[in-house]
């Protein structure tokens, strides 16, 4: 439903710009609306509080008692859920969109492959951000606000509201420097064929860099948390 809403808004934007804004025509805008809609759930754009909840209740000790790395443990569980979510909540919006609109689908297998990799990385970045945001619960007894803040910033800077190409140039530049664009805007652009040739590799490399950097941040936070913070309750 929101896909349609966003599609029509973007059509309006394109029409107001004389059929094209920032080099994006109506077809691009509409496809963008639906592809980002498909990416929402799988990248955790709706928020994720399970770990924070376990920290709050103290159940996180059980996770710490397992002979596995806590971050990788949660990454594994995220990956499984994300893969399922992409199937169940990612494909339907695209199909629904295709019923009414002429969506612009990648013409060649190479783009599809790059897109698939880009989505995997987007989901990984989504995990890394939420993991770090959830860990804040070790310091603040209630981290729901942090999670909502992440969701808000992500929605705006990730291009989930409008494509960041519609921002003023300086704001778009800021958005490109943040990891959120790598979660939605970038995979959508890959899908739309806006990163042809070596550009695709650059896009993937940027995503990978964010993924690794944010994982490292989560790891540092986890280390600090387990070293000094009280685990709630007996």
């Amino acid at each position, binding site marked *: 439903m929101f896909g349609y809403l966003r599609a029509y808004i973007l059509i309006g934007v394109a029409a107001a710009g004389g059929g094209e804004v920032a080099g994006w025509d109506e077809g691009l805008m509409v496809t963008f609306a639906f592809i980002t809609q498909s990416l929402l759930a799988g990248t955790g754009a709706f928020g994720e509080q399970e770990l924070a909840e376990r920290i709050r209740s103290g159940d996180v*000790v*059980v996770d710490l*008692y397992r*002979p*596995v*790395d806590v971050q990788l443990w949660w990454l594994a569980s995220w990956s499984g859920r994300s893969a399922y979510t992409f199937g169940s909540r990612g494909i339907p919006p695209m199909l629904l969109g295709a019923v009414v609109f002429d969506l612009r689908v990648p013409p060649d297998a190479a783009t599809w492959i790059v897109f698939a990799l880009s989505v995997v990385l987007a989901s990984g970045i989504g995990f890394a951000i939420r993991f770090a945001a959830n860990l804040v619960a070790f310091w603040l007894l209630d981290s729901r606000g942090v999670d909502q803040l992440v969701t808000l910033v992500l929605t705006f800077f990730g291009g989930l509201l409008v494509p960041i190409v519609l921002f003023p140039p300086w704001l778009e530049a800021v958005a490109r420097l943040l990891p959120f664009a790598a979660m939605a805007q970038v995979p959508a652009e890959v899908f739309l064929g806006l990163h042809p040739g070596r550009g695709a590799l650059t896009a993937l490399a940027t995503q990978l860099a964010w993924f690794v950097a944010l994982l490292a941040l989560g790891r540092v936070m986890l280390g600090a948390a387990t070293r*000094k913070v009280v*685990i709630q*309750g*007996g």
Partner: protein
Amino acid sequence: MASTDQPAIVADHLEKTFAVRHRAGRLRRHRIEVRAVDGVSFRVDPGEMVGYLGPNGAGKSTTIKMLTGILTPSGGSLATLGLDPTRHRTELAQRIGVVFGQRTQLWWDLPLADSFELLHHVYRTDRRRHEENLGSFVELLDMSSFMLTPVRQLSLGQRMRGELTAALLHDPALVVLDEPTIGLDIVSKLAVREFLVNLNRERGTTVLLTTHDLDDVEHLCQRMMIIDHGRVIHDGGVAEFKSTYGTHRTVVVDLVDAAPPLDVLGTMVTRVDGPRQRLRFDRSTTTAAQVIAGIVEEAAISDLSIEDLVRQVYDAGG
């Protein structure tokens, strides 16, 4: 691997302090240090079953978290199965089993059978050994009827049997049980106890148990440690404990009618409830026979329960 004569746990002047902030104005906070564990030293040998007791907030859970590497000690030294727990938490997790009476390590939405299968992969246990263990635990704990029920639908007693199995499938050398019988009915409680005794006897598994159920300690442990205000105030055999602290006995006298407190040599009336009076005496100076002889009416002698004794010790420590 650890040699068999290596101690399971060695704690030496173990300390843990927490900083607690108190509000002291609109923005100012007072920082107060709380010593949750204050210089605790003990040693647990392989194959021992030790009861670790103390009132709520005495420092039991904090000690356990340090032993298992979840919390870093503020001072003193600690070795669990020969390892420094905080530095080798993950490695240690492979060799210990932990059961929390109030938490679950099972997956709420999965049946027990699936949880156990997952644990087989998490701990990378040998397939044959896993099947063997699982088979024997299912039989000993009588779990076959609910192996396929999702965990959230299990009764507490059923779930606790699942928890024990989950903690033991990887053949841990040390099991730490935090209030494993809390909230259990008598049948499940007995099943859990019998299972633990069996485990300790058959496999030589070291067991450290915290509980408020002193019956557990009496039935399971040869040794008990009592901690209060962060210090160990008793460490020794359970039988020895009873004789050390149990020098006082109470005689309960049911008189035919209410009467003023009885005056019997060597005793003191501690309570009068209508016709019932409680006379306390010191076993080391006065014998029960003397007391009874001093009472003309019919008298019943009740042995102090271990629960009362422990309360006395808590009172004395507090």
